[in-house]
């Protein structure tokens, strides 16, 4: 999910929220005349009924509704899309050719390597962009029996490997660890011995 999409999310929710606040306060003020007092005392929907009963109204409503529905569907799917290209250009590129690396592959390999040298289970790697800097983010769960020093040494080693692969400092490595999965209570393994 990109920062632009997150900004649009916030804007959309803010606009809808402010609209609802305005509508709600209008309904309250209609009853108590706290701010304005020039409201009509009765709602007349005769003109709206004339429109709703025309032959073209259902078609216009359907087209507008489908467009809104497609917008909503696109909005939902936009959150599932991966961030744009995960490739980064190496400093060795020149006029004779470009050298680009798929950083997502590097992240996957680095995560697998971290899983072998560190007390980390379920390692996975992803890529995030922060301006001109690409972040290789490795995630996993700490082993319950992990030795803290072994963990930090393995993280430092993995970070050094990633840094060595990209000496121009445009690709950084981060390790984010969560708690081990809890064992479900009440589930026991039964062994029958004959």
């Amino acid at each position, binding site marked *: 999910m990109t920062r632009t999409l997150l900004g649009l999310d916030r804007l959309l929710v803010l606009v809808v*929220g402010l609209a609802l606040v305005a509508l*709600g306060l209008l309904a309250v003020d*209609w009853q108590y005349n706290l701010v304005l007092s020039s409201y009509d005392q009765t*709602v007349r929907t005769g003109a709206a009924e004339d429109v709703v009963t025309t032959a073209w109204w259902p078609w216009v409503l359907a087209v507008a509704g489908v467009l809104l529905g497609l917008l909503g569907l696109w909005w939902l799917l936009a959150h599932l899309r991966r961030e744009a290209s995960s490739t980064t250009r190496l400093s060795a590129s020149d006029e004779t050719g470009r050298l680009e690396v798929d950083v997502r592959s590097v992240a996957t390999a680095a995560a697998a390597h971290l899983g072998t040298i560190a007390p980390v289970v379920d390692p996975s790697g992803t890529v995030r962009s922060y301006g001109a800097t690409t972040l290789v983010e490795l995630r996993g769960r700490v082993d319950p029996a*992990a030795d803290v020093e072994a963990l930090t040494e393995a993280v430092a080693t993995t970070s050094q490997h990633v840094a060595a692969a990209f000496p121009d*400092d445009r690709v950084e490595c*981060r390790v984010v660890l*969560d708690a081990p999965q809890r064992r479900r209570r009440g589930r026991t393994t039964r062994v029958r011995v004959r």
Partner: protein
Amino acid sequence: MSVSTPPKARPAAVLGAALIAVVLIAVAAVAVRELVVSQRWASGSPWSLDAVRALDGLTPSVGVAAVGVVIALLGLVLVWVAIKPAARTHLQAHADGDLWLSAPAVAALARGVADRAPGVISADATRVSRRRITVEVVTSGDPTAVAERVDSALQSQSRASPGPP
């Protein structure tokens, strides 16, 4: 340049926007239903006409004001959701690499360190927060001496933990 943005949870605004998107899809379904019913492709009465007729003759009342209060409160919730910053999910460790641990992960490490300390029968992290983790241990020996050993073990291993154990 070092990435200084800490790991964060998905902002609540994403969920709010997703709900609004679902509402838009529901609006599309209702609009298509209106067309289907109006063209007599299916039986039923058009909801838009019913809604317009239901609103005709509406006058201000306490009930309308109450509905307005509910709508305004819902709007305030959405405004709060829109501006609420994303929560930080992990704590940065004092390590050579860029290492971040969730509070439960730190608790699991602390529990493991305490469990391996001499004299400890079992250990469990009972209270876990971003600022403090409480590890309770069961011991067969002198509780004070074991507590000191556990504390010593935690201190020696706390170089990678984000805060004091």
